[in-house]
């Protein structure tokens, strides 16, 4: 009973941590540009796939991982420079279609160059499960949770204690005012794309030993990351983390106790319910339109 509960909790939190990283990625880009980046899931996929590719091509694991984070970050910058910056201020739908176009290109190129097969990565610290009150916890889950926690702390420090981070935060509140006080908002924009792509890639790498990866896993992961970002209130960093964990854990409990066939539907039912009762998510600010 308790063991089963814990088991669902562990697996939910692990997946939830990936959603949280994806949601943070959405949040970063949304704050910098008001763009919902539907290519976010592809960065997760790219991280996992590249890690597999470099590891299999004989690079030592740490080098493979660094490259698997670096390359998606560069892809993120390219997407921003080529596709987002030229259409600043376009309508929401237009921006959504551009990012979906970008996601198709990334997915398509991955399929062409890395193949359509399903791949795995060896767990970082072996496969010996840790037993806790009858439930088992894989060491890789600890890696996922631990790294996510570190990322969250580093991001918090970055946004609250460094000048660059504060500049990015200021841009999200009021980009015109930020520009007037001398912040280079276009640099902020490409930094947020690079950071959010890297965050996605980190998540993708970490879960690959647990959930496997292939060229097409990005869509669902990205959409659930979007759900997580909205659950917490779009634009709210803490909300994104809480939202990610919440979505992951509820999905896991839903799949375990209710219906595993409807596992993928659970985040979307959740978000509809939340939006019906809290139109701006759990932590979203109430805004009053000025007229």
């Amino acid at each position, binding site marked *: 009973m308790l063991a089963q509960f814990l088991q669902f909790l562990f697996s939910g939190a692990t997946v939830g941590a990936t959603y949280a990283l994806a949601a943070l990625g959405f949040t970063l880009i*949304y704050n910098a540009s008001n763009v*919902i980046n539907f290519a976010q899931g592809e960065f997760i996929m790219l991280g996992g796939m590249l890690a597999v590719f470099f590891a299999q091509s004989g690079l030592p694991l740490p080098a493979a991982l660094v490259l698997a984070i670096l390359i998606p970050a560069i892809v993120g910058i390219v997407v921003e420079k*080529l*596709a987002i910056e*030229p*259409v600043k201020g*376009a*309508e*929401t*739908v*237009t921006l*959504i*279609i*551009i990012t*979906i*176009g*970008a*996601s*198709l*290109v*990334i*997915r*398509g*190129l991955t*399929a*062409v160059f890395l193949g359509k097969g399903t791949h795995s990565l060896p767990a970082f610290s072996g496969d010996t499960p840790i037993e806790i009150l009858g439930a088992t916890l894989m060491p890789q889950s600890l890696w996922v949770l631990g790294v996510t926690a570190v990322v969250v702390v580093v991001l918090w420090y970055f946004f609250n204690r460094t000048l660059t981070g504060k500049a990015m935060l200021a841009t999200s509140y009021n980009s015109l005012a930020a520009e007037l006080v001398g912040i280079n908002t276009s640099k902020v924009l490409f930094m947020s794309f690079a950071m959010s792509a890297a965050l996605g890639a980190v998540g993708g790498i970490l879960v690959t030993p647990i959930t496997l990866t292939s060229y097409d896993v990005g*869509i669902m992961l990205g*959409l659930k990351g*979007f*759900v997580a970002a*909205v659950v917490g209130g*779009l634009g709210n960093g803490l909300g994104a983390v809480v939202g990610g964990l919440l979505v992951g854990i509820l999905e896991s409990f839903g799949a375990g106790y209710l219906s595993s*066939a*409807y596992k*993928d*539907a659970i*985040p*979307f*039912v959740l*978000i*509809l319910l939340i*939006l*019906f009762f809290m*139109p*701006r*998510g759990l932590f979203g600010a109430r805004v009053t*339109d000025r*007229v």
Partner: protein
Amino acid sequence: MQKRAYFGLYIVIAVLAVLPLVVPNSFYLDLAIRMAINAVIVLGLNLLIGFAGQISLGHAGFLGIGAYASAVLPTHFGWHPLLAMGAGAAITGLLAAVLARPIFKLKGQYLAMATLGLGIIINIAIRNEAAWTGGPDGMPVPAMGLMGFELTSDKHWYWVVALMLSVSVWASINLIDSPFGRALRALHGSEVASQVVGVDVVRYKVAIFVMSAVFASLMGSITAHYVGFVTPNLADFFHSIELVTMVVIGGMASVYGSLIGAVLLTALPQALATFEGWETVAFGAILMVCMIFMPKGLVPTLAAKFGKGD
């Protein structure tokens, strides 16, 4: 405005009348039928997205309800196809109406999220209820018949959808230039201004959402009967995106843009089939390039270039 708009309608009717005489083979006739079906859906969706300014990323879900009503009800319950089609439209309309009230309290990105979620839930339900729907493999659909006459040949289907398309274009033009249509456009232009002149904005958003959902459902039924087979892909997220892309590439708030968008995006995958393996890359790249260089879509961009209003 009316006269010029109707001029376009006459051209559409003329093209539709001549087309079957000039298409070289059944491959192109099939393509034309699918273009026309998409065009009707996109006209409805453009009223919602382009004219009223409300995004939906879940319309393929409604299309799926129509398609599967036409597959499931006649197969498992022996319903007449027309009755099944009506039932699909009614279910869709009801679902859309019930959910639209809370959904349209939302704006922008939140609205995108809610409609996306709704579409995905419908798709997952279709995939999972395999006993009824055949699951991921899909299921065959009985032929559509009316008073002893079975609609089987592509020629017959062509005239049916050509008629539907002509009527839809006519009705859309009429609607846009009416008090109802102006209220829709006004709530897009300034929601608060439309409210203070008496427009009940939520009611209007709900009305146009339900109407476009019912259109999608009806055309889903038509697709099901025409193709003779349904799969859950009809209702998936990517199909929703394809429909929205047709609206935006053709031109938001442009009736003829909807037609152009539907024609181009229905033809594109065929044209790209020669790129073996690179179709997805090419499709994505074309979407991006179109949106970057013509963010307002083809028809409005060209209209502005040649100095005509819409």
